[in-house]
């Protein structure tokens, strides 16, 4: 074993597990995967595109090295020269040593952020290769414990933190009461299960459990924009850790839960909370996992906020956010989803001093919190170490606030902040938007004020 954390019996490769893993590879070997497995020329120019390599430059952190581990297995199984002369082309058996290496490379040192994909001169999709390796390992019960548990809890309880319906509803109602009191406006609503609402909004369970003020931020924005929106009690978890475990069946189940909720409510649009992988899963991958297209549109809350601002539906005062702000692009929204201009458009309207990181947008460095890394405590030291590239980027901006639109990024950035002693505050984009909203004084309050004056 390469890591003492994987000494559990379930990480032992049996003949049965070996053939199951190989079956998974065989089933997933489509044209796209084969092209990526075959086309790499091992030039190594992808090295600097990886935040693991930038933070700790060693050959094992080169994306091509990671992909090469699965390629070795592929060549041994599918390439005539790999079968006849494995040493010549770098082919290898799927044995215990290889499985250990795959765990460390596919789960332990890659967030599937896609930066190497964008930077590969040959167009190799290392994300795809790594996810295939994860799928093989997951099929033989070799997913690291935390990730496995996160997926299982989601499948069993309907959300990845096991929040029950009562707690969910109570937390939302509590936040509603606080928001009404804060704004002095009892007309603010957070509707549950409203039939035929235009928009269904989702949450990351962390918002319910640890960051309930983000519920307020979302509610403030929806109410200010006059949106016809609702929450669902049937299914509301925006996350989908099946994306990270490589388990398409589990991922499809989680995605179907949300699809069912939106269909039952008859909404036009499913709005994904500020959750990078949740957006990527539901917007880009889910329909392919499930096998049919949705009858509704899926968008990110970031896109919707930009739309509200563009349409003049939010009255904003950027002077309420006067500190210097930089933006961290979540990989699953920017590089893997094309949402690059929207957060910048939002920030130009809600803060007075916005500064870009270098690089940013599609070429932004992953913070290190993607790929399910935060759930895999076995790799937390490596994750923090890999955050150095991001810490250096943040420091160089001189910003006091790092805004982002993803919960995994939020948590990882917070850890980076503490680990590298950065004097910054990490905030969700919606918090800054909500803070900049100039709330119209309700008619009753206006009347009261006039009476007081008289």
């Amino acid at each position: 074993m390469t890591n003492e954390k994987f000494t559990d019996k379930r990480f032992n490769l049996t003949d049965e597990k070996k053939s199951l893993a190989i079956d998974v590879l065989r089933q997933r070997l489509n044209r796209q995967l084969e092209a990526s497995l075959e086309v790499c020329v091992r030039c190594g120019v992808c090295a600097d595109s990886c935040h693991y390599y930038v933070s700790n430059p060693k050959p094992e952190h080169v994306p091509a090295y990671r992909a090469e581990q699965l390629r070795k297995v592929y060549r041994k199984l599918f390439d005539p020269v790999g079968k006849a002369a494995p040493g010549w082309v770098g082919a290898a058996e799927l044995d215990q040593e290889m499985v250990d290496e795959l765990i460390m490379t596919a789960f332990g040192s890659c967030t599937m952020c896609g930066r190497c994909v964008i930077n590969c001169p040959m167009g190799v999709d290392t994300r795809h290769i790594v996810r295939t390796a994860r799928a093989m390992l997951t099929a033989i019960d070799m997913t690291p414990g935390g990730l496995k548990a996160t997926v299982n809890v989601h499948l069993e309880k309907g959300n990845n933190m096991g929040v029950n319906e009562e707690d969910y509803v109570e937390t939302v109602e509590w936040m509603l009461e606080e928001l009404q009191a804060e704004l002095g406006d009892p007309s603010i609503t957070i509707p549950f299960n409203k039939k035929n609402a235009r928009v269904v909004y989702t949450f990351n369970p962390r918002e319910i459990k640890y960051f309930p003020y983000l519920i307020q931020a979302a509610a403030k924005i929806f109410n200010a924009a006059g949106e016809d929106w609702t929450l669902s009690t049937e299914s509301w978890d925006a996350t989908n850790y099946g994306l990270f475990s490589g388990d398409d069946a589990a991922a499809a189940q989680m995605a179907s839960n949300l699809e069912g909720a939106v269909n039952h409510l008859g909404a036009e649009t499913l709005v994904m909370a500020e959750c990078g992988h949740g957006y990527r899963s539901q917007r880009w991958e889910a329909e392919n996992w499930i096998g049919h297209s949705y009858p509704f549109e899926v968008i990110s809350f970031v896109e919707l906020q930009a739309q509200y601002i563009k349409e003049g539906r939010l009255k904003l005062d950027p002077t309420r956010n006067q500190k210097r702000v930089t933006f961290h692009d979540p990989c699953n929204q920017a590089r893997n989803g094309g949402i690059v201009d929207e957060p910048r458009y939002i920030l130009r309207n809600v803060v007075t001093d916005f500064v870009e990181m270098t690089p940013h947008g599609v070429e932004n460095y992953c913070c290190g919190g993607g790929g399910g890394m935060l759930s895999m405590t076995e790799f937390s030291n490596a994750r923090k170490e890999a955050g150095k590239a991001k810490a250096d980027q943040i420091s160089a901006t001189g910003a006091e606030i790092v805004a982002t639109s993803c919960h995994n990024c939020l948590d990882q950035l917070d850890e980076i902040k503490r680990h590298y002693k950065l004097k910054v505050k990490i905030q969700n984009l919606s918090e800054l938007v909500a803070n900049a909203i100039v709330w119209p004084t309700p008619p009753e309050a206006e009347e009261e004020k006039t009476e007081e004056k008289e």
Partner: protein
Amino acid sequence: MDSIAITRIIAIVGLALCLLGILLRLKTIMNRPFKKDLSRERGLTGRGLLFAFTLGMAPWEKESTRIHWISYMRGIFFHVGIFTAFGVLLVSPWLEILPNWLIWLGVVITGFGALFGFAGIFMRLSGPNERVLSVPDDYVSVFLSSFFIALGFATLLWPSALPVFYVVTGIVGVYIPLGKIRHCVYFFFSKFFFGKGFGHRGVIGQSKGKYAE
């Protein structure tokens, strides 16, 4: 039969085997499943594809090629050398009637191509990452390709080298579908999927959006 005729047969047989090997590789990949993307398009897929096969290959477009521009340009010269050497092979029966300027243009391109090809072996041996990543096939593939270009160069200057060029062509031809050089087949597939995937999502090759500054 003279040596030219015999070695020409070797080259033709090698190239025929190469073609057969490539066709088998193509048949294999075309038999793999290809699933339509069911998600709604955000950008224009066509623009992504166009970008992937044109501007997306420019050395300034990717951070990796901006950082490793020497390595990238070496690769470009090397590949231009390979294509030129194939050109030399095609016109080899008529070398004597080619205009002088064309011969010298070929000499310059294949000369640099071979030089940059052999330099690739040195770079692979001297770079710590490349050394770890490399397998014997990498060295042999680069060597064979560079040697092939070098013989194209030699043939242009000294036509007596033609039989050796033909023999090496035969060897290279047989090796192409077996070794790493076969990436030339898969390159078009991977670039297609790259352009299609990221174009569909509106990540690459798109015009300015409504929220752009």
